[in-house]
C-alpha cells in the first residue's frame, strides 16, 4: 500500500469508501478498553489493587476526538521527546441503525459494517485516569481503509488482526478473545449511551500493544476488511 506524505490532523472521514449506502461516518468514535483478555492478563493481580480495587464491571470506554482522525497513508507525528508510540489495532463496528438499549439478540442488526481502528498512544503508566494527553493527539486514530458491509464481512467474532512494523509481524490477535464480543458490548454500551448511524465503536485491542518508532511504517490488517498503512515520523523530521 502506498504511503502518502500528508500529515494528519483533520482527516475527512467522508473520504472513507462505504460499501454500505447511504451511511456516512458521523465523526463519533468510541473505543472499548481492556476488552481483550490479554489486556487484563498483562495487568495480573494489579487489577484488584489500588487504584483500581476491582476488575471493570461496565465497559471501559474512550472517545477518540475528531482531531485524532487519520486515513491510511497519512503520516503519524511522534511528539518531540517521545521515543515510540503504542499502536493498538482494533476491529471497529460502524453503526447502521440508532441503537438504544438494544438486546444482545438484536444488537448486530444495528451494525452496518466494519472497519479497522488503530488507537495510537504515547506510552503511559496506569489506567486510572483518561490519559487524554497521551491518547487524543492529532492523527492518533487512523481508521478505514473502507467500511465493509456486515453482510459481506466474515464473522466478527473470528477475525485475526495482524500488526506489522516495517513488514515484520509485531502482533497477531484474535477477536475470539474479546471479553465482550460485539453483541454483548453493544448491549452494555447502549444501556446508557445511544449509538447513532455512522458512529464507530472499536472493540478493544490485545496487549501489550506493539510500539513504533519514528521512520517506521505500521500496517494493520484484518481478515476481509483490508489494511491500514501509516508511517510514523518525528516532528523534527
Amino acid at each position, binding site marked *: 500500500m502506498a504511503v502518502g506524505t500528508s500529515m494528519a490532523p*483533520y482527516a475527512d472521514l467522508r473520504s472513507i469508501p462505504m460499501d454500505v449506502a447511504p451511511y456516512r461516518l458521523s*465523526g463519533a468514535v468510541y473505543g472499548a478498553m481492556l476488552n481483550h483478555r490479554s489486556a487484563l492478563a498483562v495487568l495480573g493481580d494489579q487489577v484488584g489493587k489500588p487504584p483500581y480495587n476491582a476488575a471493570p464491571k461496565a465497559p471501559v470506554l474512550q472517545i477518540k476526538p475528531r482531531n485524532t482522525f487519520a486515513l491510511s497513508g497519512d503520516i503519524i507525528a511522534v511528539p518531540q521527546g517521545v521515543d515510540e508510540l503504542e499502536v493498538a489495532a482494533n476491529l471497529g463496528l460502524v453503526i447502521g441503525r440508532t441503537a438504544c438499549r438494544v438486546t444482545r439478540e438484536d444488537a448486530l442488526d444495528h451494525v452496518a459494517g466494519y472497519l479497522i481502528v488503530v488507537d495510537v498512544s504515547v506510552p503511559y503508566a496506569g489506567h486510572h485516569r483518561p490519559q487524554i494527553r497521551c491518547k487524543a493527539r492529532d492523527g492518533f486514530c487512523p481508521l478505514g481503509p473502507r467500511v465493509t458491509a456486515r453482510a459481506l464481512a466474515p464473522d466478527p467474532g473470528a477475525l485475526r488482526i495482524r500488526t506489522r512494523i516495517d513488514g515484520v509481524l509485531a502482533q497477531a490477535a484474535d477477536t475470539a478473545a474479546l471479553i465482550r464480543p460485539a453483541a454483548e458490548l453493544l448491549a452494555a454500551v447502549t444501556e446508557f449511551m445511544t449509538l447513532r448511524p455512522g458512529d464507530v465503536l472499536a472493540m478493544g485491542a490485545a496487549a501489550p500493544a506493539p510500539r513504533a518508532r519514528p521512520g517506521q511504517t505500521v500496517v494493520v490488517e484484518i481478515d476481509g476488511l483490508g489494511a491500514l498503512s501509516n508511517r510514523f515520523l518525528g516532528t523534527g523530521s
Partner: protein
Amino acid sequence: MKRAKVAYAGAIHEATPHGGGAVRLADGRVVREDALVWLPPFEVGTVIALGLNYAEHAKELALNSQQEPLVFLKGPGTLLGHRGQTRRPRDVSFMHYECELAVVIGRTAANVSRSDALSHVAGYCIANDYAIRDYLENWYRPNLRVKSRDGATALGPWFVDAADVADPNALDLRTFVNGRQTQAGNTSQMIFGVSQLIEYLSAFMTLSAGDVLLTGTPQGVANVAAGDEVACEIEGLGRLVNTIVGDDAFGI
C-alpha cells in the same frame, strides 16, 4: 450578543432575547420562551471536560487536586439544550448536577500560548454536566457511564459572544434545585483558568471552532430526584434550566 438555537413551528431558528419571557426569532416572530424547544446554542464539536478544577469541590469529593488538569471527553449523544430533561435511573443513590462555564472555541488553536489563548474563544455558555456517582469505577475515571450518558449534559440557553464577557475568570456561578440555592462559586476559583486550559490542551490536540471546554464545577453538588428542577446560573450568561425525569418516561 446572546443567541440561541431553537426549534419552533417546524424549523430550527436563531433567536435573541426579547424580554418579558419571550425571544425574537431571526425572521421577526416573537415567541414565549416556554413555547420553544431549546437546542444547544452552537454546533458542538469535541466536548472536553475538566474534573476537579475547583479546589473546594475536589475536597468535597475527598480527592486531591491535580498537578495536571484532569481531562475527559464526552460524546455527542449526551448534549441537551435549555429546558431539557435528564433521566435519573431508579436504582441509583447519588446523581448530581455540575454548573460549569463552557468555553466555545472560535478558531483553530494549536500550540497557543496563555497570553494569546482568549483570542481563540468565540464565546461562552452555561453547562450542566450531570454525573451519577454510583457508576464510578476506577478505570479511566470518570468513565463514560458516569459522564457521557444520553441527555446528561445541558448547554445554553444562550451562546454569548466573547466580546460581551470582560473576564471569564471572574464570573459567579450558582445552582438552584427547586428554587433553593445549593451551589455557589466563582470562576476565579478554578485551579486551571480558561487561558491555561487552552494552552495546555492546544499543546497536544488541535482545537477547532465549535470545540467546547467544560471547565469544572465548584463545591455544592447535591443529589437530585425525579421531578426536580435544576437551574444553573452564570453571571452575564443567563439561567440554564433542566428537569430530572424518572425511568417511566423512557418506558424502562
